[in-house]
């Protein structure tokens, strides 16, 4: 089981660790980039590298790497769009603003597989996917996706521009990569980015006009996660509800969590594809915890039923919302951690049955990531 995770926040990156004894409390043991907006963090199990994406409001998006566990950091080259052709015209469909060929935010960052040494993927606002084949020494825009005519139809959800927030690299075949787009559905490549297919059949957007509600290309998955031992199983927290696929995103089925189906974060057990966790909010219209109670909703039967978990979480006048990357499960499937917009941070060592408060006054939490070790076999069952 993993005993360390990283927390990316609006104003810094924090390391949380448990003391040496099993019952030792969890505490913040290191901090970095204090005052800076850390939009994403990655722990690469292949070489132990830690990556932090910074979103300097004035100075742009940057990437830093640490190769000593977070003690020191070095700035690396950040993904960058190629020169925009002079005659190129494109506007974001919902707001009509020109799409900038510039990284506005690094929103997702993932390591390639064991069979893809040096491979890294990076999703950005305004919708470009980037790939590095040399361990982050250089990046290239994935033109097959950027130039796809349907990519031009992507539109912003909560942000002004569309963005790629989820990148799922199939642990059994790193050429198969699934991405989630707000708003633009779920896209899959089987050939490491040479070609792409939109796979969002079954997803439903009730807020769209009737004739567009099942249109795969306009779906707004908030977060897409993949089961490591059964990669055909993916879960999506979607603007309109929660969806699950058992066939590699070829079709999605809606499930009905309690106490609500609206939320951003979802995590799936690495060894049990039917076990997943959500951090629900009340509704799209009212993005606060249901009845002011912070809860985690867990299913162990593929979404047939849900258990609402609250032991150790605030149950009165709590208005914490959990962003899409701010919930994570470790490689064993036993440890979970999640953070909130109001700077609270909780950890569980028993699949969510009970929670311990790690911090209550952090900056808004954007992303939580357990430090992953190199796979040593099947995840816990």
């Amino acid at each position, binding site marked *: 089981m993993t005993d360390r995770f990283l927390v990316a926040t609006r104003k810094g990156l924090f390391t949380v660790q448990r003391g040496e004894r099993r019952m030792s409390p969890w505490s913040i043991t290191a901090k970095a980039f204090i005052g800076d907006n850390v939009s994403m963090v990655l722990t690469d199990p292949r070489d132990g590298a830690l990556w932090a994406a910074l979103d300097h*409001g*004035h*100075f742009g998006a*940057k990437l830093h790497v640490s190769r000593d566990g977070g003690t020191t950091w070095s700035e690396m080259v950040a993904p*960058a*769009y*190629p020169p925009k052709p002079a005659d190129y015209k494109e506007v974001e469909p919902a707001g009509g603003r020109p799409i*900038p060929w*510039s990284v506005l935010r690094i929103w997702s960052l993932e390591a390639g597989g064991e069979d893809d040494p040096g491979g890294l993927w990076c999703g950005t606002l305004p919708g470009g996917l980037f790939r590095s084949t040399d361990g982050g020494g250089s990046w290239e825009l994935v033109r097959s996706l950027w130039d796809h005519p349907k990519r031009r139809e992507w539109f912003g959800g909560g942000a002004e521009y569309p963005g790629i927030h989820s990148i799922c690299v199939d642990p059994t075949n790193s050429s198969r990569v699934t991405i989630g787009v707000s708003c633009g559905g779920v896209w899959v490549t089987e050939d490491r980015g040479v070609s792409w297919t939109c796979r969002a059949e079954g997803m439903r957007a009730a807020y769209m006009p009737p004739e567009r509600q099942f249109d795969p290309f306009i779906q707004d998955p908030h977060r897409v996660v993949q089961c490591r031992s059964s990669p055909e199983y993916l879960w999506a927290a979607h603007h309109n509800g929660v969806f699950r696929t058992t066939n590699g995103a070829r079709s999605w089925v809606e499930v009905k969590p309690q106490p609500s189906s609206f939320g951003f974060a979802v995590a799936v057990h690495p060894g049990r594809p039917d076990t997943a966790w959500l951090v629900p909010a009340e509704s799209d219209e009212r993005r606060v915890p249901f009845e002011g109670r912070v809860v985690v909703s867990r299913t162990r039967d593929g979404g047939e039923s849900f258990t609402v978990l609250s032991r150790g979480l605030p149950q009165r006048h709590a208005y914490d919302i959990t962003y899409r990357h701010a919930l994570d499960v470790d490689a064993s499937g036993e440890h979970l951690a999640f953070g909130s917009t109001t700077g609270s941070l909780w950890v569980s060592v028993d699949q969510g049955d009970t929670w311990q408060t790690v911090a209550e006054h952090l900056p808004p939490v954007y992303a939580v990531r357990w430090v992953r070790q190199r796979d040593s076999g099947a995840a816990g069952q």
Partner: protein
Amino acid sequence: MPNVSFTPNIQRHVSCPSAAVAGATVGEALEAVFRENPRARTYILDEQGAVRPHMVVFVDGRQVQDRRTLSDPVTDQAEIYVAQALSGG
């Protein structure tokens, strides 16, 4: 030669000392700086070579007009100041 100086706020991320450089436009002067200090470029300009949305460049106290191609002329005595716009929280 025009003198280029930078907001103190940027120094925490990348060292940008003031420099007297050759150049007849804002773009030429900044390009001369970036030749010596390539990391500074991405902090001030975006990938398309335009001034970042929340950055601002002054020449002798006046904001430059051409933020996209940086064609505003500068004199040999010009003071070019690269600052951050007021935004964020």
